[in-house]
């Protein structure tokens, strides 16, 4: 794949309504205006996106033979475990953050971002690049493991320190009951639920809901990215205090993890489009499930670090540069 078409992809992405809406959301924050959706609308649209992705993925899944999925699924789970470990290690090199803060960040980068994934699908569809229907399954597989690995890494780090310092806070145990509630949250269930509905109802059943779950998808995402821009924009003032090491991490690590994902997808026999989506999944950092879980399990981790990195830097980076980049890499490899 040559440079011209890569730049073409990048430009097409930059001038798409969802990405432009995201930019408007950020600019609004800089102008001290508030473009946020009401909370209920935010929740309802999230549910719509998850169900729509699941449904469509499920319909496509019917056509995939189980044999095709096994390899990508295993690779995805493996990446879900390795990526937070790699993040934890790289953060030690690049920053002076404590083990707790590094574990918190590892949990975020080990998990995935629904909206980044959604934007990637919309981008691929607009560019006319095919991808496997079962990518929604990979999204589901990748959401939780990375969070748990990140929490365990943080906890191990705390205990090592605690053995010497005997601080009482580090004796506290993780409240798994609360965590369970956070981790079995809506998102996984809606995705799995949508997949099941799609698999069972098939193309005929889906057709009647397509005007809602299909045709509206890009438009709804555009409205939603306005809100995401506002959220990311509110994190920008903290970027200055995050330090150059964390800043570098938040840009470099997605590219590393994204390449790993693309490579894994290609090795697993996926099409260029599918491998690019796996790359996006690996590159993206969670900004919903992980923050809630980390807040409960690692209250001493500083949200100023993990929210700023995942939502303030990595999310815009992936949306604007990352997605076309991983697609270009996938097309070059395949």
């Amino acid at each position, binding site marked *: 794949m040559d440079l011209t078409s890569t730049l073409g992809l990048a430009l097409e992405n930059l001038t798409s309504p969802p990405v432009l809406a995201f930019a408007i959301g950020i600019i609004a924050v800089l102008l001290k205006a508030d473009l946020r959706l009401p909370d209920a609308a935010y929740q309802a649209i999230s549910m719509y996106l998850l169900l729509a992705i699941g449904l469509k993925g499920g319909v496509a899944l019917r056509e995939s033979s189980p044999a095709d999925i096994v390899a990508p699924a295993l690779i995805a789970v493996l990446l879900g475990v390795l990526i937070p470990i790699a993040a934890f290690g790289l953060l030690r090199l690049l920053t002076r953050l404590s083990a707790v803060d590094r574990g918190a960040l590892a949990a975020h980068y080990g998990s995935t971002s629904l909206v980044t994934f959604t934007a990637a699908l919309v981008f691929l569809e607009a560019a006319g690049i095919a991808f496997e229907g079962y990518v929604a399954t990979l999204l589901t597989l990748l959401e939780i493991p990375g969070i748990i690995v990140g929490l365990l890494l943080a906890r191990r780090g705390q205990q090592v320190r605690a053995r010497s310092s005997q601080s009482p806070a580090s004796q506290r145990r993780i409240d798994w009951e*609360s965590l369970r509630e956070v981790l079995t949250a809506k998102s996984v269930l809606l995705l799995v639920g949508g997949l099941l509905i799609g698999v069972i109802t098939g193309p005929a059943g889906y057709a009647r809901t397509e005007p809602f779950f299909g045709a509206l998808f890009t438009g709804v995402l555009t409205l939603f990215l306005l809100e995401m821009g506002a959220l990311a924009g509110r994190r920008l003032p903290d970027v200055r205090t995050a330090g150059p090491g964390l800043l570098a991490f938040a840009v470099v690590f997605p590219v590393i993890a994204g390449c790993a994902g693309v490579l894994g997808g290609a090795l697993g026999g996926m099409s260029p489009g599918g491998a690019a989506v796996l790359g996006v999944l690996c590159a993206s950092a969670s900004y919903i499930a992980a923050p809630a879980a980390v807040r409960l399990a690692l209250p001493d981790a500083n949200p100023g670090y993990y929210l700023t990195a995942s939502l303030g830097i990595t999310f815009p980076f992936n949306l604007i540069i990352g997605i076309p980049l991983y697609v270009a890499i996938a097309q070059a490899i395949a």
Partner: protein
Amino acid sequence: MHASAEPNATLVTIVTEAVLESRLTRDLTACGARGWTITDARGHGPRNRRASELEGGNIRLETLVTDAVATSIMDVLSREYFPSYAVAAWTSAVTVTRVERYS
């Protein structure tokens, strides 16, 4: 004193991060609270370090309890919540008619 009658119960009001709701109500039950009322809230405080606004802002919880239960709730808050989370909490003396419901 101007209230309808002498105070005979304690109202504990707790404002904290929404993500803590289920953990907090479990802890209140353990302390002996038998009921509570929650409203969604937003706020600003001297610390202001908190989880994602994505999960919604604060909750404001009120629970009507005996003096002893109030003391044990404030103890749990001081030990488990004040050090790590965004919390504001206060107690006040109030009057109820069916006092047996709250003890």
